[in-house]
């Protein structure tokens, strides 16, 4: 420390030479590189470099989905134990969508939690509880008090009241409102109504998510332990509500239609126009305005290619799904309702994460919690909110999977439901380390898992094989995640 070195400067500078030594404006073009329109070739080269550096995103999962599709197509058609082409039949493709939707929606909610670097093990059984409350209310003519009995009913109402308080403590007013709606719906004993039942399920989801969020964010419990405890507890609540061995049938045309109904042909094409047209409009509009303002933009060719691909694939899918796919006398056609449901959740979720302050802060908390705190972000609030979102989405998933099965049993949302949802998010490219992932990852990953299960089922493989293969697929996805992280770590420093 005693030896003091003069700093080596490029050229000796006299003292107080501030203005002389500011090359500021001259170097503006250093950042000009990204404003100039990149050619498609440069963009492709950058893209390849990003891939090399480990920024893989959803690409491996999409490629995997394609491979799986072709593989099952071939195996199912040509293997002796295959069904001779059922896999690729229209009926099966629609079925695939309907089966995969429930778990996929749960996975979409989980992405929010995973982005903050936490886990929500309770979302599965919590979804079961919301389904049970909905079914119980529906089956017992809105008389929850009678079906639960006084003590359980009062305890349940107390839990809801506590959740309202907890939501206020973590300052998430929307959640408090949802919990209050749950309380009102619980107490007024409205007559069975499919729409109100579904709203009830979602609000109960927020109630349960508020409890997880409070434990993790406000009390600072590790999410693994807190939600593991709740996972077990909700399983017990579910058993208490339905009773061992019980099953509650959901014989309502509206609830049944959620996962089993289809849009009319006209509705299907309207959906296509709205969805594909909206996608094209948003992408092209953004491209135009970014170009005009001289902001970082993708090459127009690439954007056009993306838009074209989505429009063409969407049109093909819509055309196929509006063909009669029933082998019997009654015609079945049209895009299943689950498609607009998942699309709407995908659009809203993506918008929230990409374009709102809240979404930005979710990523920041997952990327560097201390930096987020220093930036003045209310970290407790963000961490609590993601659990509320996750459980509310799980409730929507529960509505869909209960509708598919047509009943709710004590196993609803239990077993592997949650872990499969985590798997779906990870297979799609969401990192369990936090900070990286998108809602669309869950959709792609959910499609991969649904395809594996459906395809192996058609090949008449026993559960043993289905589980092992599913595990291997997840392992592969985790390996890709680790490898890409290692690459991006070495590529930078």
């Amino acid at each position: 420390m005693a030896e003091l070195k003069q700093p080596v400067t490029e050229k000796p500078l006299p003292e107080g030479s501030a203005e002389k030594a500011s090359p500021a404006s001259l170097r503006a073009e250093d950042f000009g590189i990204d404003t100039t329109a990149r050619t498609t070739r440069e963009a492709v080269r950058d893209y390849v470099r990003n891939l090399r550096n480990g920024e893989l995103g959803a690409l491996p999962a999409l490629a995997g989905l394609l491979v799986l599709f072709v593989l099952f197509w071939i195996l199912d058609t040509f293997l002796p134990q295959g069904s001779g082409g059922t896999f690729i039949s229209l009926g099966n493709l629609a079925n695939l969508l309907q089966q995969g939707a429930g778990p996929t929606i749960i996975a979409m909610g989980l992405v929010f939690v995973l982005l903050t670097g936490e886990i929500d093990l309770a979302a599965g059984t919590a979804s079961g509880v919301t389904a049970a409350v909905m079914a119980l209310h529906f089956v017992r003519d809105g008389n929850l008090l009678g079906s639960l009995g006084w003590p359980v009913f009062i305890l349940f109402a107390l839990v809801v009241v506590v959740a309202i308080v907890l939501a206020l403590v973590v300052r998430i007013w929307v959640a408090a409102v949802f919990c209050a709606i749950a309380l009102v719906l619980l107490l007024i004993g409205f007559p069975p109504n499919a729409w109100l039942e579904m709203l009830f399920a979602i609000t109960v989801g927020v109630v349960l998510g508020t409890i997880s969020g409070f434990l993790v964010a406000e009390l600072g419990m590790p999410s693994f332990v807190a939600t593991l405890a709740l996972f077990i507890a909700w399983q017990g609540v579910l058993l208490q509500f339905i009773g061992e061995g019980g099953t509650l049938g959901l014989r309502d045309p509206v609830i049944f239609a959620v996962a089993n109904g289809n849009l009319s042909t006209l509705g299907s094409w309207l959906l296509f126009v709205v969805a594909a047209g909206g996608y094209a409009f948003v992408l092209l509009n953004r491209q135009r305005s970014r170009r005009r303002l001289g902001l970082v933009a993708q090459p127009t060719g690439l954007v056009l290619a993306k838009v074209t691909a989505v429009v063409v694939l969407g049109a093909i899918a819509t055309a196929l799904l509006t063909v009669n796919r029933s082998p019997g006398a009654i015609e079945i056609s049209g895009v299943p309702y689950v498609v607009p449901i998942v699309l709407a959740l995908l659009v809203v979720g993506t918008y929230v994460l990409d374009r709102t302050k809240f979404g930005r802060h979710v990523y920041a908390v997952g990327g560097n919690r201390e930096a987020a705190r220093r930036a003045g972000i209310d970290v407790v609030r963000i961490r609590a909110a993601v659990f509320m979102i996750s459980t509310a989405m799980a409730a929507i998933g529960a509505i869909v999977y209960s509708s598919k099965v047509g009943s709710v049993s004590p196993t609803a949302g239990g077993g592997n439901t949650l872990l499969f949802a985590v798997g779906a998010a990870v297979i799609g490219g969401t990192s369990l380390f936090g900070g990286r992932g998108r809602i669309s990852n869950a959709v792609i990953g959910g499609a991969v898992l649904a395809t594996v299960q459906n395809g192996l089922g058609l090949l008449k493989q026993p559960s043993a094989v289905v589980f092992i293969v599913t595990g291997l697929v997840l392992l592969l996805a985790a390996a890709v995640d680790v490898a890409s992280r290692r690459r991006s770590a070495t590529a930078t420093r």
Partner: protein
Amino acid sequence: MTQPILALRGVNKSFGAVQVLHDVDFTVRAGEVTALVGDNGAGKSTLVKCVAGIHPVDRGEIFFDGEPVHITSPTDAAKLGIEVVYQDLALADNLDIVQNMFLGRERGNPWMLDEAEMEQAARRTLASLSVRTVTSVRMPVSALSGGQRQTVAIAKAVLWDSKVIMLDEPTAALGVAQTRQVLDLVRRLAEQGLGVVLISHNMADVFEVSDRIATLYLGRMVADVATKDVTHSQVVELITAGRSGELGLARPEAVTI
């Protein structure tokens, strides 16, 4: 002598049983560069974090523009116009440069961020710091080198219309040319009338840009002197022994940690 923009009086801070700051007085004047020096572990970063609202002070007062203030969160500090470049940079690796620079203070409506406005403002600020080799402001911070990250962290602080900027070892990861730019920037900020605090271990840098030098020794402020009144070796003595001739602690051997 101008009125202090920021003044700490008798600030104490402990982490558990360890007292890190002892009755610290510290003054920052507008238009001046105040160097804060001291050995590793002397408490420089802790002092900065107390002012930034990251650590609450145990005892003592903070005055801003002559008024006593209570800084209990980073937002409070930002509202007063205090910006900090942290030693550990505090950037979110998964976000890009623009997103990091505006983190917590995003422009636009909370339900519709104004990305265009943020990107343009970020580019202007970065260009004024002449960041080289970064090809895009939309690059994730994880893809930047140490020096580039440091510049982003500095740009993040400079972006705002602030009154006090505190830089905690801002040149630690920088090369020669970049260090030069940061030192020039520090001078320029002071000339624009900001109060600048520079923490650095490099005596040559400190002597080149600072107007005053404040020395922390084991959590005590042992000297706050005009740069022109001291020599390199005096400051080094203050840092390592807590005293130098007439300056510093009266009897350093009496100090216990």
